[in-house]
């Protein structure tokens, strides 16, 4: 059943599982704003909701699947992308969204992330990056800025960091945008665009985790981190993704970095199959000479 598309905001009863409120996120966490932004972006996309499915992994951001009134799957840690891949390929009519965190998608699930981008699998990935493993108590991960303190980097993190947009671009994503939890309108717009983009689209949202990451890095309230975003975000559409890495207390480059065309996985596959299964042209009739030489 196709639902009527109307411009403007979503109303909560339409898209939120209200019977699951209150949610589990901490006061000051960025997840609430991002979910709200996503639902507006989804509403504005006009996609028929019966044909939209959402898949999450494990972690604070991974809880999104449980709050959204869509066919929604809360899977295992790191594995939302391959689950979503199966769902999408088995029913290409579906719009499949992966909504999860940085640890889930680029640490334990990093292999799936790069391969889905390489294939240009038709998925929209929303990656909430709070620089830490929130659900387990704030340990460092592959997105934790150097020198940041976490539950397992008490003296400062000493591991080099993934630049997520650059990783995605190098792997083959066709749409990459980054915002912070502060950039509500821009984020909504990017969600809508990503949902309409064929192929592997990624929206990274930098999000406050006051309870853990913020507390250990002198930004103990959600507001502190929002102020940091406000003072340090630089909007630069089309920025070279090699330059958008994030340092501790450094500038955060946001914007739409990549929006290119590249055949999606299924397009290439269909082309190959069509060629392989095309009716063969009739063999030319044998000449008398050929026939008699046998």
């Amino acid at each position, binding site marked *: *059943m196709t639902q009527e598309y109307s411009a403007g905001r979503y109303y909560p009863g339409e898209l939120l599982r209200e019977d699951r409120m209150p949610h589990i996120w901490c006061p000051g966490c960025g997840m609430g704003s991002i979910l709200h932004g996503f639902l507006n972006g989804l509403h504005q996309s006009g996609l028929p909701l019966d044909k939209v*499915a959402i898949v999450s992994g494990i972690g604070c951001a991974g809880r999104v699947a449980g709050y959204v009134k869509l066919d929604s799957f*809360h*899977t295992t840690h790191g594995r939302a992308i*391959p689950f979503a891949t*199966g769902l999408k390929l*088995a029913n290409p009519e*579906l719009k499949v969204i992966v909504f999860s965190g940085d640890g889930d998608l680029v640490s334990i699930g990093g292999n799936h992330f790069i391969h889905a981008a390489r294939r240009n699998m038709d998925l929209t990935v929303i990656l909430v990056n709070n620089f830490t493993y929130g659900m387990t108590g704030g340990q460092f991960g592959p997105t934790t800025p150097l020198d940041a303190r976490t539950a397992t980097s008490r003296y400062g993190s000493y591991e080099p960091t993934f630049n997520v947009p650059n990783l995605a671009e190098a792997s083959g994503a066709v749409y990459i945008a980054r915002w912070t939890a502060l950039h509500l309108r821009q984020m909504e717009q990017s969600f809508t665009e990503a949902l309409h983009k064929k192929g592997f689209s990624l929206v990274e949202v930098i999000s406050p985790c006051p309870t853990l990451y913020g507390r250990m890095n002198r930004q103990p309230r959600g507001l502190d981190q929002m102020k940091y975003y406000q003072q340090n975000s630089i909007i630069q559409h089309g920025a070279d993704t090699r330059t958008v890495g994030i340092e501790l207390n450094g500038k955060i480059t946001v914007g739409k970095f990549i929006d290119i065309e590249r055949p999606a996985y299924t397009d290439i596959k269909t082309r190959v199959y069509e060629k392989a299964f095309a009716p063969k042209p009739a063999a030319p009739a044998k000449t008398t000479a050929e026939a008699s030489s046998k």
Partner: protein
Amino acid sequence: MSSRKSLSGDFFITGDVACAEGAISAGCRFFAGYPITPATEIAERMSERQPEIGGTYIQMEDEIASMNAILGASWAGVKAMTATSGPGFSLMMENLGLGVMLETPCVLVNVQRAGPSTGLPTLAGQGDMMQARWGSHGHYSIIALCPDSPQEMYQLAIKAFDLSEKYRTPVLIMADEVVGHMSEKVTIPPPEEIKTLPRRKPAVPPEKYLPYVPDADLVPPMANAGEGYHFHVTGLTHDERGYPLMTAEAQDKLIRRLVNKIDKNQDDIIMLKEDWLDDAEVVVCSYGISARIGKFAVERARAEGIKAGMLRLITAWPFPENRIRQLSKKVKAFIVPEINCGQIALEVERCSSGRASTILVPHMGGGVHQPHTIIEAIRKALK
């Protein structure tokens, strides 16, 4: 008439190819896999056949991804399968558990080779039988089938899909390298003679649908994504709405049902092949390729005048406890040849509870039993 779309007739093919064809006959239209000896030929066959029949073949980046992809495909309403061997089977274990928890029909084939670790990649083993039962964390029940021939690879692939739909669970086909790689005659019936079970669909409209309200047999009907049900499912412990519920009571209710839907239906699930059991004093109990050699040994023993019988486990899990219990009251011994250091033998011993003795005939892997090792065990058992 046989066409590429639906093959039928007699073929001389390997067990791996027969397994792929069985899955196709069952309606499997999604295969995700990763190359691994000795199961690769299943993926190869599927990569050729699925495009011919409008299905999907995808080669994933690893076995973890393959397992998840078939779960996703199943939730889109498509019958889905993956195939692997030991190392890949280990990688699939976590998400086999997700399949159990979400109650997702799908089929996972393990063409067993000798392990642990890389072991003997091209040679036979049966060392994953306990892993099949207990490999994912937590407590659950599972269905595992053990084909002993290419023909049975074909038939059990169909059966595995039927059981997975009927009980909404991943079903394991626990083959072995010999059965996977041997070529024999395989008869594929015409499509109109193949009956398969459809998915168990909800009988209520979307607004009334709760994903985990079971029918009388403890299995809940299943909505697919994209049908307007807007359901939620999670690997967390959940209630009948599919919503997470972090209590011991919810855990108790859910896990009891997940276990009971298999265990309490075991009479329907379990398949055994019995030969000469009526007057048997000693019973060879085995599965897969080891059972074929076991049967040969029993025939030899009979020729010597020994009252030997054969019990072949077509279903290894759930374990046929009741049948072993019954037999243990009248036979002297069970002889259990298997290509490991004793896995199914432990179950036989448990169920016979000392009423009959259990004699393991182990093989460390890399080959199959010499029949005389089993015949000697039969003779000894009666001394």
